[in-house]
């Protein structure tokens, strides 16, 4: 039967080529959307490695004339924060704190292997505030400030890139191009998704905070709201002349960052949905027209012993075979993405995207073909055989 369908399709190749092209372009669009969705879902499925509930971020502008004064100001703020019972823990961080729009990168070198990584300067209380759990080693403490090597905690992604399967704890690595103090890895964390919920596993390094960090992260008691926020903001601004404070909830900051990823995907999906809807309408129309043109053939098939079901399957089958031709063409192009490692995504992401796109196309054509094919199957053979 398949050979029979191929013969019919081949003989009508001119009219079928348009459908093949439609399927081909639909597949490419669906492949792009599904691949993007799979990529983001896979990232989302990883644990984030941090807790943002009840975490607030205070962006403080001290207007300090120099770092020494800034240090004194920060001490004042810390003393002030100790007074709020609802503040469970707090830590100063560099401006590239989680879910901010800042970024700070540096290069790390081990055994001549150079790797770029996000660098976050944080105080020892940072893991308490963010609910970070260490997978290996320990976090740095006050005592590490006088150590010979600068202690750092790294993500497992960075650990794997720098050391592979070797144990990272205790490894001395060089930071940056300059003659910085060598750094020593003292801890490894498995996950740290700090840009948005869809960020892939990435390199991140935590170094002890210095003098200039003026972004404060605080973990507050559950149920804390605007009242506490106002108290803290007022308390801090009263400490110094010209100080300004802006407090944001980290969940809101994360939602904003997520939107930056989600909105383009949603827009793309809507555009894709619109295109696919048009393709579906086109397919529907073409199939209706084709079946209308082949009414006598349907009558002949019924007279020769085809059941209604056989006619239904025949026309759906023809559409599926045409779709398969479009898919083969589309898969030829799609397979180049994992082969050429375009966009540096895992092959499994592309392959899953392809599989979902193939299933979507088959689903689409089956739905589009079903109604016209059903109409064909219920045609009265005696009537259509006598039509001129």
């Amino acid at each position, binding site marked *: 039967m398949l050979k*029979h369908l191929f013969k019919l399709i081949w003989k009508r190749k001119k009219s079928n080529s348009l459908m093949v092209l439609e399927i081909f372009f639909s597949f490419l669009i669906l492949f792009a959307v599904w691949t993007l969705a799979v990529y983001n879902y896979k990232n989302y499925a990883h644990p984030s490695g941090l807790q943002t509930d009840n975490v607030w971020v205070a962006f403080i502008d001290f207007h300090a004339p120099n770092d020494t004064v800034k240090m004194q100001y920060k001490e004042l703020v810390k003393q002030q924060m100790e007074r709020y019972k609802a503040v469970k823990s707090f830590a100063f961080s560099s401006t590239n704190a989680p879910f901010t729009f800042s970024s700070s990168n540096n290069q790390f070198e081990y055994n001549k292997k150079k790797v770029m990584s996000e660098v976050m300067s944080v105080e020892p209380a940072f893991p308490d505030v963010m609910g970070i759990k260490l997978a290996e080693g320990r976090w740095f403490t006050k005592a590490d400030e006088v150590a010979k090597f600068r202690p750092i905690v790294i993500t497992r992604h960075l650990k794997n890139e720098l050391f592979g399967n070797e144990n990272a704890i205790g490894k001395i690595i060089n930071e940056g191009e300059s003659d910085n103090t060598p750094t020593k890895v003292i801890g490894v964390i498995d996950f740290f998704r700090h840009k948005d919920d869809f960020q892939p596993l990435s390199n991140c390094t935590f170094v002890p905070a210095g003098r200039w960090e003026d972004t404060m992260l605080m973990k507050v008691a559950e149920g804390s709201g605007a009242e506490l926020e106002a108290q803290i903001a007022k308390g801090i601004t009263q400490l110094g002349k010209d100080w300004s404070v802006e407090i944001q909830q980290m969940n809101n900051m994360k939602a904003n960052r997520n939107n930056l990823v989600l909105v383009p995907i949603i827009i793309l999906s809507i555009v894709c949905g619109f295109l696919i809807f048009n393709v579906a309408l086109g397919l529907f129309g073409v199939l209706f027209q084709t079946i209308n043109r082949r009414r006598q053939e349907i*009558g002949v*098939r019924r007279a*020769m012993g085809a059941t209604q079901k056989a006619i239904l399957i025949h026309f759906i089958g023809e559409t599926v075979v045409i779709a398969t031709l479009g898919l083969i063409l589309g898969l030829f192009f799609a397979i180049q993405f994992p082969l050429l490692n375009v966009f540096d995504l895992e092959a499994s992401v592309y392959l899953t995207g392809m599989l979902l796109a193939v299933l979507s196309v088959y689903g689409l054509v089956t739905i589009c073909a079903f109604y016209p094919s059903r109409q064909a199957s219920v045609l009265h*053979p005696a009537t259509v055989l006598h039509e001129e």
Partner: protein
Amino acid sequence: MIHLKNIEKVYRTATIETVALNNINLSIEKGEFISIMGPSGCGKSTLLNIIGLLDEPSKGNVEIGGKYTIGLPDKELAKFRNHTLGFIFQSFHLINDLPVIDNVELPLLYRSVSGNERRRLASEALEKVGLSNRMKHYPNQLSGGQKQRVAIARAIVGQPEIILADEPTGNLDSNMGNEIMDILTHLNRDDKATIVMVTHDENMAKRTHRLIRLFDGSQVS
């Protein structure tokens, strides 16, 4: 072989009721070659469609090969058509997008017959109608007579007991018509096929065993 009892066919619309067949009683024995004649619109094709299980009568019984066919489910009817009946149409009804051999194979597609076996049976059927040299041609590359011979090959490929021919010579000149009648006569005589043929042509009807005349939906002889 074929027994029609009190067959009535009425076409109804919201306002009009048209009686196409009225109280038709007909028995056709195995191996008979009968022709049905009558003016246009007298119900010849309707009767053939009812015998061919392509249409159902409004009243009456149809018995073919000892089996009552009224009310049979679609699957049973299709199987019956496929195994017991072969159709030949005035306008051939070949599928122009398929080569001759595939057109002839068509009834076998709806049976569990292997591809090789289909090809063998179709080749044999084409040989019988003298078209074994046109297997790979497309219908639009054939003359009217050749097309009808292909249609006959398609009708006999499944070795049905009954062949229903709806004006098989209607679109052909007399020479080609005679050729087609020769083939049908041969099928009836040598292969013992029961043939029911609708025709307008008295000469063709004379070559059959029996003539049934219809007028305004009723059997007149």
